[in-house]
């Protein structure tokens, strides 16, 4: 059997698994988003469909599936229909190289390609085509503007993204994601060659946020200016496909960030007392919010829930280390903790920050991120060479 | 039968000639650029294929393929910039209408 067929199999597998995963991920991504936006705006968000509105997005999906497909007049039908598929597929293909952890005696990754990082960047860049064509094909000036905007934006931000990836690859000395994670057994890359690691992480996160068109970089779909930009004309399942692609990519980006800088699935090896302190701190914070005046101005319950969750994890860690059986939690759990922490962070940003202007956006990319990234790589290389 | 060098060469030949045809017959400058990209890809296929089947150990073919890709990017950037400039000043992207310098 030649490598090629293996690759085909891998891609098939990827599509199979991650359609499911990303559907759930995306649907519950939407749910999470709505909930978090609610919390940040001191309201409950969806509550009625199912307990705490858990079934809300399922209902939405069903609704979307039933909706009619409207094709605008004088739109280029073929391209109009292909665009969402490109976006979705590209968003899903990102997941091929993302390792979830170890188990069953192998790495839980679809395919550990030896150029995983490059592959990731390539797939991320494929999304642009879909968005651009979607914007052009729907024969609508808002859509076209959105498409063009996103094209320029993504092309600009691919470079900082690639620089961030490169940084990690350079530190790890390999392009494969698994290799990168394994290289972090010594410690997270976030704290490597301080503060350059932190800088690179920041770079990567900013670029990733721009790549997935989220606030503060959500110009392509600026609801208030472009009535949702390039998918203004899309309805029903095609719209859902866009959403799917976007959320899939957002999750992928978060996962990649976790892999590159937060040590992927590896369990953070901190001494017992640190864990204890963390847990106590979480509880203390929860108590403070619960009993201080803050409870009148913010929604207490979810915060309490999160704090308690954190405290529980910390407790488990303390216990596990005490019993001397590490890793305490299965690696996949750690991976998801990190993934969702980052996702939460992105959503938090989205509902907190205003939107940039286009020129500010491009200036940021070309005049700040790009030089900083290059300088970062240069310095790191120098330091590493000196260190040897 | 297994896939050999010749297969790749055949495909790349066809791709090259398609690109040539595009370059020869298109009026739109952008389309001509596309044709050029096709020809470059054909060339790259040759490079990599030869590297695989003639000198499997070496990476020269890959190196040159990468160089070609880079130069293709440059060529696209500059070419498209030129197209933009021409379009801005002459309101056309059709090379047979851009004949200011003609006698």
């Amino acid at each position, binding site marked *: 059997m030649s490598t090629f067929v293996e690759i085909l199999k891998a891609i098939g597998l990827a599509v199979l698994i991650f359609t499911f995963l990303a559907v759930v991920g995306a649907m519950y991504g939407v749910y999470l988003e709505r909930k978090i936006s609610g919390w940040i705006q001191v309201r409950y968000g969806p509550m009625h469909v199912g307990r705490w509105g858990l079934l809300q997005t399922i209902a939405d999906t069903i609704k979307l599936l039933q909706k009619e497909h409207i094709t605008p007049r004088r739109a280029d039908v073929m391209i109009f229909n292909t665009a969402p598929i490109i976006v979705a597929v590209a968003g899903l293909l990102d997941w091929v190289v993302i390792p979830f952890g170890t188990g069953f005696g192998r790495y839980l990754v679809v395919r550990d390609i030896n150029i995983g990082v490059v592959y990731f960047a390539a797939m991320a860049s494929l999304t642009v085509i879909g968005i651009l064509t979607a914007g052009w094909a729907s024969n609508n000036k808002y859509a076209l503007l959105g498409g063009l905007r996103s094209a320029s934006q993504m092309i600009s931000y691919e470079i900082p993204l690639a620089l961030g990836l490169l940084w990690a690859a350079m530190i790890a000395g390999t392009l494969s994601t698994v290799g990168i994670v394994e290289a972090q057994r010594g410690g997270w890359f976030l704290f490597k060659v301080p503060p350059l690691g932190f800088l690179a992480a920041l770079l990567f996160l900013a670029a990733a946020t721009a790549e997935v068109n989220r606030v503060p970089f959500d110009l392509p779909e600026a609801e208030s200016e472009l009535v949702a930009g390039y998918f203004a004309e899309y309805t029903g399942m095609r719209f859902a496909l866009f959403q799917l692609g976007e959320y899939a990519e957002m999750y992928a980006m978060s996962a990649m960030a976790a892999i590159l800088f937060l040590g992927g699935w590896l369990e953070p090896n901190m001494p017992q007392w640190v864990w204890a302190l963390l847990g106590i701190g979480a509880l203390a914070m929860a108590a403070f919010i619960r009993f201080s005046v803050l409870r009148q101005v913010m929604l207490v319950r979810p915060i309490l829930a999160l704090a308690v969750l954190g405290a529980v994890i910390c407790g488990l860690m303390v216990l596990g280390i005490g019993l001397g059986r590490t890793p305490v939690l299965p690696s996949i759990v750690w991976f998801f903790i990190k993934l969702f922490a980052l996702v939460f962070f992105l959503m938090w940003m989205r509902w907190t920050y205003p939107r940039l202007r286009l020129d500010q956006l491009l200036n940021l990319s070309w005049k700040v991120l790009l030089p900083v990234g290059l300088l970062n790589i240069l310095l790191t290389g120098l330091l590493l060479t000196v260190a040897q | 039968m297994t896939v050999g060098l010749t297969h790749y060469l055949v495909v790349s030949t066809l791709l090259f000639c398609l690109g*040539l045809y595009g*370059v*020869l*017959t298109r009026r739109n400058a952008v389309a*001509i650029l596309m044709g050029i990209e096709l020809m470059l890809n054909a060339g790259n296929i040759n490079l990599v294929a030869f590297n695989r089947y003639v000198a499997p150990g070496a990476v020269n073919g890959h190196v040159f393929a990468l160089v070609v890709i880079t130069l293709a990017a440059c060529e696209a950037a500059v070419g498209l910039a030129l197209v933009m400039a021409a379009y801005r000043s002459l309101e056309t992207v059709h090379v*047979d209408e851009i*004949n200011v*310098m*003609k*006698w």
Partner: protein
Amino acid sequence: MLAYAWIIPLLPFLAFWLIVFFGRALPGQGAYVAIGALLIDALFSIGILAQVLGGATYEANLVWAVLGNRTLEVGYQIDPLTAVMLIVVTVVGSLIFIYSVGYMHGDPRYPRFFAYMSLFAASMLTLVLANNLLLLYVGWEGVGLCSYLLIGFWFERPAAARASLKAFVTTRIGDTFMFIGILLIFFTVGTLQFDRIFEAVEAGHLAGPLLTLAALLIFGGAVGKSAQLPLHVWLPDAMEGPTPVSALIHAATMVAAGVYLVARGYLLFFSSPDHTALTVVAWVGGITAFMAATIGIVQDDIKRVMAYSTISQLGYMMLGLGVLGYTSGVFHLMTHAFFKALLFLGAGSVIHAMHTNDMKEMGGLARAMPYTYWTMLVGGLALAGIPPLSGFWSKDEILLEAAHNNQGLFILGLLTAFLTAFYVGRMMFYTFSGTLRSHHAHPHESPAVMTVPLVILAVFAAVIGFVGAPFLGNPFGRFLPFAGAAHGEAGEAALGFDPAVAASSTMVALAGLLAAAVVYYWKWVPSSTLRRIGRPLYILLVRKYYWDEFYRWTVVRPTVWIARQLRVFDLYVIDGAVNAVGTVFVWFARLYRLFDLYVVDGLVNLLGWITGRVGAVLRHVQTGRPQNYLLAIALGVIVLVIGGILR
């Protein structure tokens, strides 16, 4: 530190360019730049002197050009002589620079003055540092140029312009001799490095009359530069320049360059057969000293008195060198630099106050300007050679050498000493004693920036002599022995102290002062009667022995006459020939024009016409559309491939 000595000439040079370009923009209109540069140099030189006292010497060369099998090298060396000269130039120079800030205040070309001064300092330092005749000659001409520029600094005065020209031409005569000498040495020895020349001399490659000739030619340069007979005429006129210039260039440093040259090349003179060259030097110096002193007696212009005394002192140095007193000559050079600079600056301050040079109009300035008075008194006594001031020690050494080697010159030296004391006294009495004779002058003390250098110089003039004081064991003599004395007839260098000579010279000096007092202070014998008695002699002196007239009749007039004749020749013969050729060619050209019009142009036009036709046909191929060309290329490739296959 010695290795960086090349910085010393560089600093004033940079200062020169800075001031030339940015002039008034600089601090103090450039004055501070120049002063700063020279002060740094002074510190540098002191450091170097300290190291040289420690016995260190240094030499560096770099090949400048290769002529056939001979290489021209430029380089610099540091030995005791150089160190001493460096100190003299930089210290005196910086003091004079500071003085000039006050003296040149408000001059329209103030920055240019300092630019020239800096350039002069640079050239002088180059001259001093040079370890070969070539670089030395460069510095030599540089200082010549600067003196020309500075004498003519107030060129709107015709007198100044003429004086500068005179100085330039006169010194140039000497330089010509010197250059011939240099070439002579170069072609006999094949190098210009002093040490190699000396080696050659000691090895006897350069000996006999040739050596004497070379030495004398070199001495010619010295004569011109140091205003020795018969080329002394330029120096008195050089007083037209600003007084600081006279002080720095025409008293302290540049004119001493000649003496320095002789000292530097001493071995040449020394080892010429039975000291012929040295004898010449000695006599020239002695006669110069005497004549200049006599002329100095009758001058009324205070600066001209200084000028003649400078000449005579330079003659003294030459005399000292000539009578095998290498050390004493250089020693006198140093002391003279200090007290003569002092005297000039004092005279400058007097002139600054009186707005006139004529001593007859001055008088009684002692009360008006005490600082100037006292400092000048010190300088004057030093010049007169009154112990324990510096002049005494050096002059005494010279006389000692003279007495030891050549009685005639000893007598001449004593006479000169007497005359020196006399005119010093005359000048002092005229200027400072009695009552003010001019009625429209209001003398006042000069500003501090002028008096402070005076005081410093006075201190130097007073004490610098002790470095050569015999009862201190003549440290100067030990520091600066004559290299040649080591071999050959040894012992000339350092003679012991001879009380008789010292006493006699002191006596003579006191006598001179006394006589001056008799005539000009107590006026027992008024000068008018003296004049009446010795009328012809007086005329002779006032006419300066008719040197200028002599030159006018022997040199200037004939030159002018020849020039006129040449002009006539030029006008009629050469121009005529040129014009004739011109007309002939014009006729040729007229003929050629026809050929050009009809044959050449015809061909060219034909060619152009053909090209045009062909182009008109061929241009249809050039569609201006790359795709057509590309198609053609593709078809061409196809043809080629077919050819390749069928072959």
